[in-house]
């Protein structure tokens, strides 16, 4: 199969993730959408790696996974703390600060 098709898939996944961040209101779902975007990046890296015939992209994919895992640790900690003090994970409720 033509590797370019995987790039279209990566772009599609990235767009779905980005649209989800903009549209959805639950902090956990938002965060899942961000993770989808990162995984779309991974797919693009691996595909380009195959296309160019060098290993850089595959190595970067591993780095991305580690970074995404670190982000989960910090992100979930923050979201859970907010949930415990507000009993809601909706980002619309978090509006103590206004212009």
């Amino acid at each position, binding site marked *: 199969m033509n590797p370019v098709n995987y790039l279209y898939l990566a772009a599609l996944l990235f767009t779905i993730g980005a649209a989800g961040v903009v549209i959805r209101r639950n902090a956990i779902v938002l965060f899942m959408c961000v993770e989808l975007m990162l995984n779309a990046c991974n797919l693009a890296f691996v595909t380009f790696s195959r*296309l160019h015939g060098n290993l850089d992209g595959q190595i970067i994919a591993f780095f991305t996974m580690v970074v995404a895992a670190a982000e989960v640790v910090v992100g979930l900690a923050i979201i859970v*703390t907010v949930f415990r003090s507000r009993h809601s994970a909706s980002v619309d409720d978090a509006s103590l600060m206004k212009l």
Partner: protein
Amino acid sequence: MTHAATVHSLWTTAAAAPDKIPSPDIEYGQLSPTLIVLGAAIVGVLIEAFLPRRQRYAAQLFVSVVALAAAFAAVIGLAAGDYGTSKARVAAMGAIAVDGPALFLQGTILLVALVAVFTFAERRLDPVAHGNRVDSFAAQAAAVPGGDAEKAAVKAGFTTTEVFPLVLFAVGGMLVFPSANDLLTLFVALEVFSLPLYVLCALARRHRMLSQEAAVKYFLLGAFSSAFLLFGIALLYGYAGTVTYAGIADVVDGQVRNVTPALAGTMGNDALLLIGGAMVLMGLLFKIGAVPFHMWTPDVYQGAPTPVTGFMAAATKVAAFGALLRLLYVVLPGLRWDWRPVMWGVAIVTMLGGAIVAVTQTDVKRLLAYSSIAHAGFILAGVIATTPEGISSVLFYLAAYSFVTLGAFAVVTLVRDAGGEATHLSKWAGLGRRSPLVAAVFAVFLLAFAGIPLTSGFAGKFAVFKAAADGGAGALVVIGVISSAIAAFFYIRVIVLMFFSEPRTDGPSVAVPSPLTSSAIAIGVAVTLVLGVAPQYFLDLASQAGVFVR
């Protein structure tokens, strides 16, 4: 066998010659500033794990201050050894550049962090709780605000000494960020300094709901923007087949030696280059806080603990502008006819947007947040110059601006009422009559923000605008001066409010700080005045440092 034949040559060759992987050659001496800071951060984590609670504060403060001072000494040593000029090179297998801009910005970040650590360690401002002196960080960040666990933690006198290793990790990432010489290092450094900052934002002792809200906003938007940065990196990698800055620049300029068939195919695809470059720029402009990627700035600056806000506002901006400069001047100079118009637009809306919205603000921290957005626009004007003067003027502006910001936020921590810091502007009315010294110091910082002569703000703005005008961005300078005038209006308004209005009877009191915050503010004032009265030495230093290695 037919199945084996379809296996890509990539894996078969890699499996056949495992002994050909060269062992990496790391120049530890040239990377020592970063290594010292990250090593100290790990020591800080061990202190948290093994020392009893009572001893942690002193130990953490000692380790942080010593590490930052030692790292700064290492930067000075490298600069004295001509690593900033004639011996500038790319270290760590091409991942990190050791050159003038990198060393200058690393030195600035380390000094800023050192002063910021002083404000982090301040324990005289908050009233004594149950016989314990406390700082501006939550007793126990995991406890629900107002809950029993929090009351017990406050009563037991817990403090969050984890802030010191967190700030050291953030500084470690910031040191790598402006010196990253490939896109992977850029991304990893971005995350290394962002993740501790997200946590630090959530740790305020007072107004904890506000602080947690700031953290969740900063985290979600920050993760969103770094995903854009990463996809941009993927596209640039697809375009050039490499992530090193020099490699991508060669492909952009069409100077690449051996063109593989795959590279020949992707090189011709300008969409990859343009979209990828734009997405990486987006990620960096988010960290800078440029319009239209500035939405997080006011909320996060207002909600985060004020010492963290000061550190973040100063150091993040220095690191992010360093990375932006390197990206635009080393990777994408061949593309400057494409990115210059875009950056023109961004600079104009950032300068005007920040200055105009700041006029309507009623909270000191939000006011300073919008002013930082306007300043990001002024610095972008210097970035757009695309001349050596552009680089050096941006370096100078960053050094000047970061100390003013740090000092201004340190003053904000002093003005307090029963609810903690009194950040509403109406409460600052008549402050000059009640505490002339604090008001005068804040006035100096505001005048520096406004760019009044004899302050560092004037020297910085003059250098940046001059570079922009020489670089053919005259219209940008006109808009910059207009927005400076708008910005001056609200800075002067605060000064008038402090000195020429009647003090409120229920107004805030000014807490007497320990020598830690006093020295932080004193350093801020000293740097502001020295860079304002005698900027030439530092301008020369910045212009010597203003050459990127490739």
